[in-house]
């Protein structure tokens, strides 16, 4: 089941009604309803993978208790290694096995040896990278004694499988979500309305902007050799818009849905295309993943302490690992590496914490300097997105080569309506950049009629462009 499906539009109100019909002091019953709904939600993809999810939940639940109750450091470490080893083992087999085998075969082929090693015909279980990271953070937090293990199985299972975040995040932390699961939840009218508003905005981003950009992006990327420089640049820009609206749209729907049930999930996006350098971009893009890598990879490696070389090494490690997390393809690794290269100047000049505020916080428009910095950051990230979008390295390099060939071949014609919608979208985002999501506060001063009109307009636009369900890009990760 995906968010932008009719099935979900039926599923959500049903679960919502059952959930709130239960008395709010019956937390256990509410959690059981949510857990059952989450498992059903996941089983709608492929029920067989439910067993993998349940195994992962049971493993981390059990090893978490074992780590917590062990007195010897050796035993704690053993259980931690078992849990992480098995979790990463599954991830390796399902997501990376074929990549390693193919790369190994390619390397041997380069020296004239052609081994007959078979790859596996495996389907990647949806959301495996996300729920594995949920489990890993839980185990590591117990191991580092940041939290105690969770003894209530239902609560722990719900923490890992809560349906709004199950398949594409945000990657939650036990320290943030588990206390909410254990706390009594009261229905809050204002929060529920806010949740619906965020869901509506998420649908608009996904269905109206991202899916429309995808039509052009798919065409330009698959026929890149026949398009000229202008079209190729346009294709890259449209992909930058598409991936932002696709993934942040998903996150908005997830956060809004969770809010309907009384939960606040971690924020995942904070207007990343208004960033003034790459360091700021990475504090605003896929925040839950970036902070995960910061806390569980970068800091344990020494973080920004130590010499310059160590800092540079750690920066490359997290960007390369982050790239590899996205998929078993060299394109993602290059994408990660490229971002590490972009990040280096900020790191070396000690400017990676320079922009922690909101751009043009006290003015309506950015200064020319800020505009220039934002444009440069957007250009750099857009170049990196080419690698992210390309099917393979050859395609990415040909695409880049095509841009710099300055050829005047076929030009793609993008509808004026899409330009208008993208323009209006970014104006709205700019106006709402101080909020959690663009529509959160900018409507508050509007009269009720105007607000309702805008909501209906958004619904009409969503219906207008809705067609075949398009999966979210991040589902493949």
């Amino acid at each position, binding site marked *: 089941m995906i968010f932008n*499906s*009719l*099935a979900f539009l*039926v599923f959500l109100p049903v679960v919502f*009604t059952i959930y*709130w019909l239960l008395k709010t002091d019956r937390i256990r019953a509410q959690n059981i309803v949510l857990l059952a709904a989450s498992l059903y939600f996941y089983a709608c993809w492929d029920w067989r993978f439910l067993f993998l999810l349940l195994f992962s939940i049971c493993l981390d639940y059990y090893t978490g208790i074992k780590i917590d109750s062990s007195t010897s450091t050796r035993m704690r470490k053993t259980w931690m290694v078992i849990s992480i080893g098995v979790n990463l083992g599954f991830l390796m087999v399902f997501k990376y096995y074929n990549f390693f085998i193919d790369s190994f075969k390619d390397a041997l082929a380069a020296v004239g040896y052609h081994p007959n090693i078979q790859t596996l015909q495996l389907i990647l279980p949806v959301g495996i990278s996300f729920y594995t990271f949920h489990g890993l953070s839980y185990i590591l937090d117990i191991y580092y004694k940041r939290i105690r293990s969770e003894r209530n199985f239902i609560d722990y299972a719900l923490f890992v499988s809560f349906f709004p975040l199950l398949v594409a995040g945000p990657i939650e932390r036990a320290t943030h979500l588990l206390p909410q699961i254990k706390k009594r939840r009261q*229905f809050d*009218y204002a929060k*529920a*309305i806010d949740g*619906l508003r965020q869901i509506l905005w998420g649908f608009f981003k996904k269905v109206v902007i991202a899916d429309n950009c995808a039509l052009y992006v798919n065409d330009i990327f698959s026929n890149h050799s026949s398009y000229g420089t202008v079209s190729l640049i346009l294709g890259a820009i449209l992909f930058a818009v598409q991936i932002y609206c696709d993934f942040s749209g998903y996150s908005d729907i997830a956060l809004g849905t969770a809010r309907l049930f009384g939960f606040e999930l971690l924020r995942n996006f904070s207007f990343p295309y208004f960033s003034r350098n790459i360091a700021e971009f990475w504090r605003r893009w896929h925040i839950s993943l970036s902070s995960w890598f910061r806390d569980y990879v970068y800091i344990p490696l020494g973080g920004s302490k130590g010499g310059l070389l160590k800092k540079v090494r750690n920066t490359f490690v997290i960007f390369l690992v982050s790239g590899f997390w996205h998929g078993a393809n060299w394109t993602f690794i290059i994408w990660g590496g490229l971002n590490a290269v972009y990040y280096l100047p900020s790191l070396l000049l000690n400017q990676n914490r320079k922009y922690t505020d909101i751009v043009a916080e006290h003015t309506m428009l950015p200064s020319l300097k800020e505009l220039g910095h934002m444009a440069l950051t957007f250009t750099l990230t857009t170049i990196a997105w080419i690698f992210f979008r390309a099917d393979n390295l050859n395609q990415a390099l040909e695409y880049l080569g095509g841009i710099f060939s300055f050829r005047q071949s076929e030009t793609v014609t993008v509808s004026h309506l899409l330009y208008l919608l993208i323009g209006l979208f970014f104006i709205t985002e700019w106006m709402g950049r101080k909020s959690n999501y663009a529509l959160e506060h900018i409507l508050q001063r509007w009269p009720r009629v105007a607000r*309702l009109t805008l*909501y*209906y307009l958004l*619904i009409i636009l969503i*219906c*207008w*462009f*809705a*067609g*075949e*369900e398009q999966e979210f890009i991040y589902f493949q990760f």
Partner: protein
Amino acid sequence: MKLFIYRVLVFLLPVLTLLLVMELYIRSLPNEYTAKKEYMDMHAPQVETLILGNSHALNGINPAYMDGHAYNLAFAGQTLKYDWELLQYYDSSLTHLKNIIIPISYFSLYNNLESNSTNKFRLKYYKINFGILRHENILYNLEIASVRFSKNVTTIQQQVFGTTADAHAPGKREEYLGWSTRNSTVEDIEKEGKEKVARHERYIRPEELASNMHYLDNIISFAEQHKCKLYFITTPHYASYYRNMETDYFTRARHIMDSICSLPYSTQVRYIDMMKDSRFTKSDFVNSDHLSVSGAARLSSILNGLLREP
């Protein structure tokens, strides 16, 4: 919470009402499926030659050129699965059936309608009009949800302002025997052929071979039970189409069809490959894989000659 649900419902009521009205209105509009259903419901017992299959048969075989009572029950994108489903649907009514004609296209043995992004919106018609098959995906049980909303608006707009939305709409033909032709001829058939093959190849799924073989078996059994002749035809294609085909697939499909048809049956089962038939010239095509009015007349006459053979 009750206030919240009440207000949300009140807010959504106009939207839901509008969608419901649109669904009901579009369902009430005549289309090719309703027209053919209506015809078959009335005349199935008299039909002697039934033409099934995809657009290659829909545009290529005109029953008007055939002896006896022939009817074209082909639809764009129709696969062997739905040929079989329609035969089952009219099983008890087809009391005078003598011949069944089914096209075997380049991709017929390797595709299914459910994964054909161009045509899968048609799945709903089988459910809505013939009541056959229930699709897990609710989108394919509804008129308005299976295509873009803008398409629905255009359909309604064209109805309200008196222009026909569906190029295949039955109102366009004087004598409706299920056959229809395309409105325009492509300008550059060479380029179109290459693009069309590429598009068709996107829908080729070798893993579908087994299930399509199963439907072929069922169709042959049906023909044996009804003691009628069964003709599998590969309709003529323009050179720009077959020159660009992945020949392995078609060679294999042709080999399979020859093998199947060489088996002993209690009725006549034939496979006729007219893919490269030299009797068809450029003017017989509207595009690289669909015949024009004259092409359809030529093919139908040839087939009629075959049907006359003992």
